[in-house]
């Protein structure tokens, strides 16, 4: 029998030891900040949250030996207890609805409430993928219209809507490239990935069966064009480039890169996770891109992980379009939206599809929200959103470049994210210490230790969401923390001091995680 473990370290009905604060409480609560135990520690297994009618217990079982011999051990909580449990936990959490969430590369932007209103319309929310198409023309029409706008905004030829996340979209794009190469009898083995690309890129290529090779970055933080050209050859299937890249820079040589790759018979995959910085300004199709995924949960303001998987549609060039996956929507002149599946693919001249990415058509809840964002902003609004995101990042870069080392500040304006290193921190002080101090100041930390090309990296992405007043507050906190980390303020080593839990032992949590809760039988 395993030793029972109380993971919360806190139990109702048991006085807590003083945490050393000036005004300790016996409950562990601090006025509006309430302590909370695990749900198993609140609800007894002998109680039930609902009133069930008395049932005779001597009825013969029709389950035979399959009947459960012991209780389920599930906690019984009343509705108010359950609601309070999750509400209390949510108050110990931090989200974009509470404040600035500057995670670089993750693009945490505001989710407009209009999106939510539209997504809840019964015609979008209460449909089933197996419904006859003539009963879901509205939902299919919205999908088809979103597809149209994604093609229009990227200047590409077609779009595969079904991938359920950015990395899933990457896989879809690489499988299209593989299908196109195999169709011409030219199975190539290698995918080139620059150092400044997202980490999922080499993982995707390897998953699709390719060997991956690095292409170095130049001192500006961009792809080394000459090194890339030198490596191109008849074995290179594709180059995967993140643009804007993870150093927050636009790859100025993109067209030259595409031309060189095409000349060598390969394809260009662009990681479009950072498309929010260039939408309405640059069309990837004009840059020679063959495939690019778009994270609807980043660029088009749908929630991260909200109510199911994300959505990562992939736009395709003319060369790759014949190999795009099924199903997809097609609108005929009579206005009817058809679903193109294996059975009718030949009617739509789409017989080379590499297969499917998902059982059904994609993530409707994300489609309705993204289309709402696009239509409510309009072309000028999307263009402004990208401009504001870039302006906000540059404001942070220039305000803080005197306080922190900004390795690529001399490479010109940044795009949507500002990048700093830990150079100049006092001996023994790290980016982690600064990030923990930022929690005490009431901000979610920025992305840390990524990209890998910068030591102790801090990658800050404000998006267009933040006002100047909000950004100024963040800059003030960062300047103060910069002084403390350079002066070697010991209090930072044990930060956060005001969070519901103090500094956690992250190494121990990763080395010996406790992932199950055992009931205390004693």
């Amino acid at each position, binding site marked *: 029998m395993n030793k029972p473990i109380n993971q919360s370290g806190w139990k109702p009905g048991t006085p807590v030891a003083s945490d050393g604060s000036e005004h300790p409480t016996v409950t562990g609560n601090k006025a509006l900040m309430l302590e909370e135990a695990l749900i198993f520690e609140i609800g007894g297994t002998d109680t039930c949250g609902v009133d069930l009618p008395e049932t005779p217990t001597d009825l013969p079982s029709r389950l035979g030996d399959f009947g459960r011999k012991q209780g389920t051990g599930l906690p019984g909580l009343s509705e108010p207890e359950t609601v309070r449990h999750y509400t209390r936990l949510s108050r110990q959490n931090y989200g974009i609805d509470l404040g600035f969430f500057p995670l670089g590369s993750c693009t945490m932007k505001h989710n407009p409430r209009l999106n939510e209103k539209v997504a809840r319309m019964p015609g979008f929310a209460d449909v089933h993928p197996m419904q006859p198409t003539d009963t879901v023309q509205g939902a299919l029409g919205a999908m088809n219209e979103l597809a149209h706008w994604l093609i229009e905004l990227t200047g590409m030829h077609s779009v595969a809507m079904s991938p359920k996340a950015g990395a899933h979209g990457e896989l879809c794009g690489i499988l299209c490239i593989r299908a196109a190469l195999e169709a011409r009898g030219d199975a190539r083995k290698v995918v080139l990935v620059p150092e400044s690309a997202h980490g999922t890129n080499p993982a995707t290529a390897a998953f699709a069966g390719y060997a991956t090779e690095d292409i170095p970055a130049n001192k500006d933080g961009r792809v080394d064009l000459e090194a890339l050209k030198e490596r191109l050859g008849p074995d290179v299937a594709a180059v995967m480039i993140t643009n804007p890249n993870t150093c927050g820079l636009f790859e100025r040589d993109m067209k030259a890169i595409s031309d060189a790759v095409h000349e060598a018979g390969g394809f260009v995959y662009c990681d479009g996770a950072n498309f929010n910085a260039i939408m309405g300004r640059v069309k990837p199709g004009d840059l020679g891109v063959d495939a690019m995924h778009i994270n609807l949960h980043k660029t088009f303001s749908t929630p991260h992980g909200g109510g199911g998987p994300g959505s990562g549609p992939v736009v395709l060039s003319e060369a790759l379009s014949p190999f795009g996956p099924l199903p997809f929507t097609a609108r005929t002149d009579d206005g009817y939206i058809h679903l193109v599946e294996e059975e009718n693919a030949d009617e739509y001249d789409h017989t080379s599809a590499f297969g499917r990415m998902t059982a059904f058509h994609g993530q409707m809840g994300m489609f309705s929200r993204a289309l709402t964002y696009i239509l409510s902003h309009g072309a000028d609004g999307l263009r402004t959103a990208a401009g504001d995101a870039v302006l906000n990042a540059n404001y942070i870069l220039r305000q803080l470049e005197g306080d922190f080392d900004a390795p690529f500040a001399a490479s010109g304006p940044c795009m949507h994210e500002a990048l700093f290193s830990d150079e100049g921190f006092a001996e023994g002080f*790290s980016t*982690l210490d600064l990030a923990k101090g930022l929690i005490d100041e009431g901000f979610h930390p920025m992305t*840390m*230790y990524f990209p*890998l090309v910068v030591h102790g990296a801090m990658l800050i992405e404000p998006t267009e969401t933040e006002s100047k007043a909000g950004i100024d507050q963040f800059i003030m906190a960062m300047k103060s923390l910069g002084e403390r980390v350079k002066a070697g303020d010991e209090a930072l080593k044990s930060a956060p001091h005001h969070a519901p839990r103090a500094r956690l032992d*992250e*190494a121990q949590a*990763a*080395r010996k995680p406790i992932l199950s809760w055992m009931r205390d039988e004693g």
Partner: protein
Amino acid sequence: MARYFTEEHEWIEVDGETAIIGITDFAQEQLGDVVFVEVPDTGAEFTKGAEAAVVESVKAASDVYAPIAGTVLEGNSALEDEPELVNTAPEAEGWFFKLTIADKGELEGLMDAKAYKAFCDEL
């Protein structure tokens, strides 16, 4: 016995026909607290520069490369339960794997302790 170092911050202890390989103190310092190590299986064959092991810290996951070609004699199974050995004793108990050396010529051009220290000082 002779000890060599690589620009990838690995050390190679050569004893006759076998070599013990690990990561340097400088490398563990950069990685931070190591939380997981995956060492190669006995009998695995590597060419020079092939990915041989994985080390994961609270900051990042990194590959460890075979600095010379050879066949794995043994991976350090102690790292499975005690990955922190890489932090506490990187150049001793925290070794990663042992190899039979395929080509001693590959040792030429690697750094000695003094050259490696100078290399690190310049970073």
